[in-house]
Structures are given as structure tokens and as C-alpha cells.
């Protein structure tokens, strides 16, 4: 998948995240990882599509400027 630098990328608020893993299969470039009970968004892989943000049941994912 060719990737252009997005304007915004997803970040996770670990204080809110419940580690349920719902967002993983929603991410088209598979940029979200859950390892040793910590959720991370791979900055270099996120395309800024926002598909993970709305479905998060606790609102732990948000878009921030890429910069």
C-alpha cells in the first residue's frame, strides 16, 4: 500500500484504553498493535483514515496533527 503523509494520525490515550482490541481488525494498514497488554498506534503506518476512532467503546482513540 502506497502511503502519503497524512495530515492527522491516530493516538491512543492509555489512561482511557481498556485494551479490548476492538480497533485492531478495523485498521486497514494494521497499524495498531496490542502486545503485553499495551495498545500502540504505529506512527509510520497510520494513514489517518480515522476508522478506529468512532468505534472505540470508551473514546480512547483520537486524531492529532501528524507534525
Amino acid at each position: 500500500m502506497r502511503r502519503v503523509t497524512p495530515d492527522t494520525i491516530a493516538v491512543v490515550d492509555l489512561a482511557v484504553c481498556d485494551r479490548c482490541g476492538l480497533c485492531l481488525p478495523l485498521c486497514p494498514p494494521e497499524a495498531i498493535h496490542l502486545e503485553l497488554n499495551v495498545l500502540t498506534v504505529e506512527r509510520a503506518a497510520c494513514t489517518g483514515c480515522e476508522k478506529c476512532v468512532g468505534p472505540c467503546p470508551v473514546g480512547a482513540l483520537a486524531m492529532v496533527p501528524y507534525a
Partner: protein
Amino acid sequence: MPDVDVLVVGAGPGGAVAAWHAKQAAPELDVVLLERDRAVGSPVRCAEGVGDAGLREFVNPDGADWASRKITRVIFQAPDDTEVLVAERGVGWILDRTRFDAYLAAQAAAAGAAVLVGAEATGMSRNGNDRWHVRVKERGQDDVYRARVVIGADGVETMVGRWAGLDTRVPSRDMESCAQYVLQGIDFDPDAIYLQFSEAIAPGGYAWIFPKAVGIANVGLGLVALKTDGRNARQYLDAWVARRFPTGARTGYTVGGVIVHTTIKKTYAAGVMVAGDAAHMINPLSGGGITNAMKAGRLAGCTAAAAIREGDTSERRLSAYHKAWMDLLGDDHLKYYRIKQALEHMDDASLNSLARTVNRIPQEKRSIGRIFAHALIKHPQLIPVAARFFV
């Protein structure tokens, strides 16, 4: 670097049954069951409801300490709280998943499988020698297991499927966001499950009350994020609970995703099978996945055992698992998915009027089929969809 025959990733109901049945079918095999968390069955991310008949294919719930409550009635609630009691026989059970999952893992262990907790698979690769090399992190130590067959029963966030090159992505519209409280001190019929359908309460999904005991229930909802007004599942649930059970004590809370999709197109690769939520083997109409995962786990475990005995764990050999699953339930799920799509056309006013119509049918004659037939009479635009289902 341990060599094993079957490595099962994930000790939920699907994984535990896979390990149990693989070992039972071929006792000479080394079977290892990995659980990422430090205890099998925890944390609970489930409403814990299960049908009676499916459960009894594997275990006997009568008097079991992992069965919290027997359910004999289903009460559908319209958006305006009109109740429709549907006649059913031997409906089901509300489980204690912490105990249930541990009980199934113990069955696997009793059959001779090794159960490892606090052991997380972090990656895997296929080397030329017919084995998968699976990296496992256990108590801070990294190890590599060499497995002839890997069964991915690693749930909604499956990694095994991705590592094997399978497409396990979910369209956003087919992922329900769920939130649930354990509420204590509330008033409801403890022998019934309640399902409330409403765009305003749980758009694209439904809200539920699943009794754990008299006065105690799992109270939650699932919704499709694309259909919401911007609030997340927890905020929708807070609003519903505030209206229905303002005095209930919230003694537990969980969130998660339920995939209301159809089985992934390919559930196998050379030396790999994926089962349960990981392969989207969930009834897309009800969101129920426990016995689906167990049945898939049984198929995967038995296929693995037979394939290893034959010395053939190729993609072609393991495709028998996919076919068996589609014949057993996968094709039914396609039909349920179409019904779900049809029901999405019904707004709250239609659901309210449908509930009142159905309540005029004598209770003993009410069935899901009849309710659907009435929905068609009221909403002829559903007929093309229904025709596809019945044909």
C-alpha cells in the same frame, strides 16, 4: 526451542476445545495451549449468554459451578418498552465465564494438553521445514515454539490470522462496540433474558439484560459506531442504565467489540487454522459466539490431529476444516447476516408497531419466524431480502 505438534493460541472456549479435542483425537501428539493473560477466563469480555443445545454438545451445565443461571424465557422490548414474550423451549444459560473458561482449559489439561498462562505469542514465521516458529513471551522471557500446526483462537484482535497472511479485517459497519455493567440490586425477571431494539438506545445493535442471579445482571449494549449521534458505547449505556436502573449498583464494567460479519473467506493456510471470533465465526444476528467458537475449535483440533497423523499439514489438507465449518454453521451465518441487514431498515416507530402486532398472536404460537413474517407484511420493502433468505 520446544517442538510441539499443535500450538493453540488463546485459551477461550474455542482454543480450549481445540486443544482438548486435538489431544483426545491423537493422544500421542504434543499439544500446547497458550493464554496471554495471567488467568484463563479473565478479564471477562462477554455478556455470558449461551444456548442450551450447543452447550450440551460439549459439557453438562446441570448443577455446574460455571453456570450462573438457567434461562427459560426471552423477552423482546420495543423502543417504547412494549414487551413481547417469545415462546421458546429450553432456552439457555448465563455462564460464569471466569469459571467456564477455566473448566474447559482443565478438560484440555486432563486430556493431556499443556496449558500455559501469562504466555503471549508475539509473532510467527514459517521456515522451510514444515513448521511454524512462534515467538512466545512468558514471564519476561522470550522463547520460540516450533509447531506443525498453529490454531489461532486469539479472539477479535487476532494476530495469528494476520501473521499467516489471512484477511481478518472487519468493515466498520460490521463491528459492534459494546459496553456492559454488572448491576446489582435491580428488579427484573431472573429467568428471562431481555433484548431491547431501538435506534435511540443502541443504533444498529441492541441492549440486553442477562441475569446472573436474582437482582444481579449483565446489563449492556452493542451498537454500530457509524450509526451513532457521536456518543460512544459507554455513553449510550450510561443513558440507558440511568433511565432503566437508576438505583442499580455498578459492580463491574467491561467494553469490547463483537464482529457481526460472516466467516472470513479463508480460515486456513499451510499449518494454520483460525477459529472463533478470530475467524468472525459469530452469529451476526445475535452476536453470540461461545458455542460457535467451541464447534470451530472441535473441528480445528480434530483436523489438526488427523492431518499430523497423515503427515500432511499443507494448506490443501487443512482446507477440509474450512469446508466442514461452512457446512456446519458458516453458510447459516450468511443467511443470518442477510436478516440482520433487513432488520436494519426498521425504525423505532415500525418496531413499536410490530411489537403490538405480535402481541396479538397467542404466546405459544409466537416464534422468530412468525415475527419476521409479520415484519414483512408491515414492511414489504423487506421482501426481496427475505426472499434471498428463504430461497
